[in-house]
């Protein structure tokens, strides 16, 4: 069945069109929506696009960084002020996918995809949501909890630049250099006076959406990143997780592995 494609010059017009009709999907890089069309997904009949320049812009403003939702993984990798995110963008697909896949699209990628979102969750990112002609800010965690019901357009993602060495990311996949996640872990661990203050740890492929590892965060808070601090975090590694069993790994395997890789992430070992 042919699809109706509507292209708008502004995000607000696109957002209105998206909200007006439940059988509409927004197309950014195409890696999710075009795939659905190719598979004969009949749950939508209209595709909305936006050619708004702001949608594809990276705006680092001092300590705050804003990525337009249409920014591609390749754009992130080419940006000199986003070096801490280069390994994350690099973990998404192969070179062609990275030229197409967007920051916004990654927010909607079903598990076990969505590794970039795991990093954004650890960075406590906020989404600028465009619903019709009104905009609002939504914490990423809140967005993920109701992702399936979302009808707004994500315009951009904003987060604070982490202090040097405070941000870590690890993706575990069976095939290298390009493989789908068995799991991924991102951690933001700011150190203040030798102790962790404001730990945020996020997992990918450990639940139906990227999730925060709150038990791990609690275990790390106020601790030094020494052997006992790491041990406390690792002991709590699988708490609160509900990993899927899929072709890549069983839920049991993911629960066993998350502790192993959390330890390596925290200790900085390969």
């Amino acid at each position, binding site marked *: 069945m042919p*699809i*109706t494609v509507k*292209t708008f010059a502004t995000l607000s017009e696109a957002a209105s069109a998206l909200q007006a009709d439940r059988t509409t999907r927004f*197309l950014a890089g*195409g890696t999710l929506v*075009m795939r659905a069309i190719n598979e004969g997904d009949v749950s939508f009949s209209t595709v909305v696009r936006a050619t708004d320049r702001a949608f594809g812009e990276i705006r680092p403003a001092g300590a705050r960084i804003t990525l337009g939702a249409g920014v591609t993984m*390749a754009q992130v990798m080419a940006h000199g002020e986003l070096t801490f995110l280069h390994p994350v963008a690099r973990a998404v697909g*192969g070179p062609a996918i990275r030229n*197409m896949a967007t920051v916004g699209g990654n927010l909607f990628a079903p598990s076990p995809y969505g590794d970039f979102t795991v990093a954004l969750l650890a960075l406590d990112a906020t989404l600028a949501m465009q619903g019709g002609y009104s905009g609002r800010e939504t914490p990423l965690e809140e967005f993920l909890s109701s992702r399936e019901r979302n009808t707004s357009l994500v315009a951009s993602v904003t987060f604070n630049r982490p202090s040097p060495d405070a941000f870590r990311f690890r993706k575990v996949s069976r095939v290298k250099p*390009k493989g789908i996640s068995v799991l991924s872990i991102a951690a933001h661990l700011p150190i203040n006076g030798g102790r962790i203050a404001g730990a945020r740890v996020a997992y990918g492929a450990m639940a139906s959406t990227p999730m925060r590892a709150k038990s791990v965060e609690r275990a790390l808070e106020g601790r030094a990143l020494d052997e006992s601090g790491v041990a406390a975090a690792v002991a709590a590694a699988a708490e609160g997780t509900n990993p899927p069993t899929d072709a890549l790994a069983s839920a049991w395997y993911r629960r066993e592995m998350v502790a192993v890789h959390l330890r390596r992430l925290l200790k900085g070992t390969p």
Partner: protein
Amino acid sequence: MKTPVQFKHNGSDVAVFVDGGASLLVALRDGVGDTSPKFGCGQGTCGVCTVLIDGEVHLACITLAETVAGRAVETADGLKSGASLHPIQTAFMENFAAQCGFCTPGMMMAAKALLDRNPSPTRADVIDAISGNICRCTGYEPIINAVLAAAGNRQRA
């Protein structure tokens, strides 16, 4: 409703009519008649539809056709010039890099994207460049060798 799309195809201006939601791959194969990009998975996973859009490597099967309006699309069919093969094609032939051949056009376009930017890649660079392209004959070694040989041939040329 059909949508007209005009773009450059291997250096020539082309215009095709596509159905709403049609991919660039359909536009190329059914509209332009260039069957060098293949239909494999239709999911952006296998890389057999790899093409260059404005010099950047893309997957035609998950590219909405109308987004290439006014842009330059290169496919494996455009590698040769007249009766002369492109150095990448020659290197693939000389290094036995094609077994069944289905992945070959995508592999060559991924290789072209690499060599256009990085004329003397390392083995690791080549592996990364073709990491989005699957060869189910598992002939990766000769393909990697062919791309490295193509880089060598170009440097000599």
